[in-house]
């Protein structure tokens, strides 16, 4: 197992390099003078020239990339001109808020998606299955930013039981209960689409597995139907569901952009939107790199979990 994990970790390195290359190339596509684009059109010529030199823009593209990568590895993500502080500091601060939100959403979608998928496969064509299918359809079709607004209208405006925005109350908040109260609506909103996808796939995977020969063998052994479904079928189905949960991490991390804007959650998504409208490109670059790396990491974990479940994958 240890050697498998080591192998997967090594395999992640080229992926991370590739990500950094794509981000670098996208940033290199900026029309016109990058330094002006970064500093804005009101920057003094001296500042533009200084930035050009510090970005190494007088050199060839591959050399520029290597220098840029070297800086990243030293923790130098550049400086946000709008916030006037190092990009890394801002990103790290924001990232923890996003992790709380996205992590909760990922847990919610895993738990409820699996439950709904299993129940609707087991009770195929029953009323539970119909209800689940109906909600899955709505869940994967409703824009999350619209759902967020609807939930705010219902729970914050009409019922007045949950806060509409922010991560902590401004006065007297700050403890865990306060955080949970603020977290509930955005996390649920963020989880809805992913829950639908997980439920749908779990249902299909379970139905597929239940037709396999080894399920017939389990029944021929005289196992109870409970054991057949929750031990034999579920374990086999999980092998194909786990990578899908890994993919949902991407959905949740990306979708955080909308949810953080709607609920004014102080995370990286809201930061990115603001940074784009202020053309604070180094901040955008740092944020995108961080979230993408987190996504690679989650998928790495999904790979390892899958290999733990399925010994055939380890070799």
């Amino acid at each position: 197992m240890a050697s498998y994990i080591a192998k997967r970790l090594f395999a992640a390195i080229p992926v991370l390099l590739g990500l950094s290359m794509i981000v670098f190339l996208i940033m290199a596509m900026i029309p016109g003078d990058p330094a002006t684009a970064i500093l804005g059109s009101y920057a003094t010529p001296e500042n533009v020239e200084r930035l050009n030199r510090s970005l190494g823009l007088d050199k060839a593209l591959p050399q520029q990339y290597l220098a840029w990568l070297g800086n990243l590895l030293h923790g130098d993500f550049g400086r946000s001109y709008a916030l006037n502080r190092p990009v890394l500091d801002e990103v790290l601060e924001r990232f923890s808020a996003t992790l709380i939100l996205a992590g909760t959403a990922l847990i919610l979608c895993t738990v409820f998606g699996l439950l709904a998928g299993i129940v609707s496969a087991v009770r195929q064509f029953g009323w539970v299955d119909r209800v689940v299918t109906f909600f899955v359809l709505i869940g994967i079709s409703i824009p999350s930013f619209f759902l967020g607004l609807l939930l705010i209208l219902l729970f914050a405006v009409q019922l007045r039981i949950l806060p509409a925005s922010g991560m902590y109350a401004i006065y007297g908040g700050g403890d865990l209960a306060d955080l949970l109260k603020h977290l509930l609506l955005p996390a649920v909103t963020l989880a809805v689409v992913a829950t639908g996808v997980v439920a749908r796939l779990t249902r299909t995977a379970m139905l597929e597995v239940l037709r396999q020969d080894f399920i017939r063998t389990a029944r021929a052994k005289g196992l109870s139907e409970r054991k057949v479904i929750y031990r034999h079928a579920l374990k086999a189905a999980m092998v194909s569901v786990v990578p899908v949960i890994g993919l949902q991490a991407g959905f949740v991390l990306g979708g955080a952009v909308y949810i953080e804007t709607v609920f004014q959650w102080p995370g990286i998504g809201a930061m990115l939107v603001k940074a784009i409208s202020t053309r604070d490109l180094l901040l955008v670059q740092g944020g995108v790199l961080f979230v993408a790396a987190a996504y690679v990491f989650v998928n790495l974990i999904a790979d390892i979990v899958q290999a733990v479940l399925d010994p055939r994958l380890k070799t």
Partner: protein
Amino acid sequence: MSTQALEVGPPKDSGQSRTAWRLLMNNRLAAAAFYIVVLIVIMALMAPILPLHDPDTTSPANRLLPLFSEGHLLGTDHLGRDVLARLVWGTRVSLFVGISAALAAAFFGSLIGLVAGYAGGRADNLIMRGIDMLMAFPYILLALAIVAVLGPGLLNALYAIAIVNIPFFARNVRGITRGLSHREFVDAARLSGKSHIAILTTEILPNVLPIIVITMSTTIGWMILETAGLSFLGLGAQPPQADLGSMLGQGRALLFTAPMISVIPGVMVFLIVMGVNLLGDGVRDALDPRLRAGALSRPMPVTRIERPHVPEPDETAKASALAVTGLETSFEQGGGREVAVKGISFTLRKGECLGLIGESGSGKSVTALSILGLVASPPGVITGGAVTIEGRDVLSLDETQIASFRGGKVAYIFQDPLTTLHPLFTVGEQVAEAVRAHQPIDRVGAHEKAVELLRTVQIPDPEQRARAYPHELSGGQRQRVGIAMALANDPDIIIADEPTTALDVTVQAEILRLLQALRRDRGLALLFITHDFGVVAEICDRVAVMRHGEIVEAGETATVLGDPKHPYTKRLIACVPIPGQGRAFLDAIRALPSADTDRGRGA
């Protein structure tokens, strides 16, 4: 329509698309979605000629009029603009952008996929690595990065959404193209001197089109949603131009005072996306039935039993280890039922080995599985007859009672142990589980018992092997595990369904010897299903020959072998090749003329 033809077949005629259309319209949900989408599209197209207010004319006197106001059916927004007019025009913009993005992504993605798949080799490798890299990004994030560079704007949002969707098309198209580029009709075109471009456009593209359509129909909903999302964030449509997303984004500021201004465009996006998604699912199902999730139905724990009348077992039946009386098993197909086992009867005496022989499709395996209700249901239904074990009719028992027979008094051994053993549990766990299903014994005890059983079936180093997974064992060892599992609870009867068919000849002989030895030591009754008279001659006391779901001949093995009555039996016997008799063997395997050979079942 076969999926084979769809995936890699030669070009098709238009009859097929007509079938697909009918399939789509038969799907009620997809048909409803189709009409909704068509209605919305027509509304968007007719926006310039509909009697609407100008969507951009502000009217400070008429700010925030409620729903159903005179002249403003859906009210007005914070600048006094007519919400209905803005909704229709906004829908037009959203649809236009979403569809354009989908077309662009489909075009460029398919182009990349075609080139990569057709070129193969290093070019393919390089392109697909790049595509994988793009897919390693959270999708929306990549779109954001692109908008960040290009700057906010509707057109830039369109580019961004198109670019992030290119990988989906490239991947799917590349996979199919890769398979096609090695097919005979492509080789033929190449040999006839056609250029690469001609081959790609005339030979490969027509076969790849269904996949492009499927991918487009399943991603276009997302693309509409994501462009609306970018506009919602203020990165897409810029004022005064409005799409549904930016209407929603601007309405958000008035959420508490005038919620309808954001709810209305939100509902519209929802309707469009749901309609497109449902329609997309319908298109996918119609074009590629293999992917239809609903087609899978889960098999029940016990085969459905619908016997109009239950035969009373006679004295012989009650005295036998196992008696099957007038068993009839059918499969539901389309609207009707096809009978696979047609009222057969036989008995298995205590300690006896009965061979049930026939070719594939003769109904012998279905018979074996019917005994304890293991025929997959749906589609299987037991429509008649009785199965008597210990004087009781098993098929009248309830689910838990039948389960207590399974692996207890009666154990099964199946054909291909690679698919019949659970791939994710060690063989030790699987044998121990069989023990614990019927005996009150703790985990450790069950494990020890499992190791003991593995030793009984002559698996070398059983302590070690118990920790192995099925894929780590050889075929013969896997079948020994299957036998160990069957022996777990000292059964009286073992039903072996072609236990040696998947094995090579020397291993087959070893497994047969093992079964024989176990039978003698434990006084087991063995029902042995096979298509091989050689095997029957070796181990069976009696034999019953099955054909088209009926027993055509039965008797002592020596008698049947020495003096076969039915021509089918003669043929089966002659099928055992004897060195030096090549010509006779070939005669034997020639099809037997029969009234019902054309039924597609059996011969």
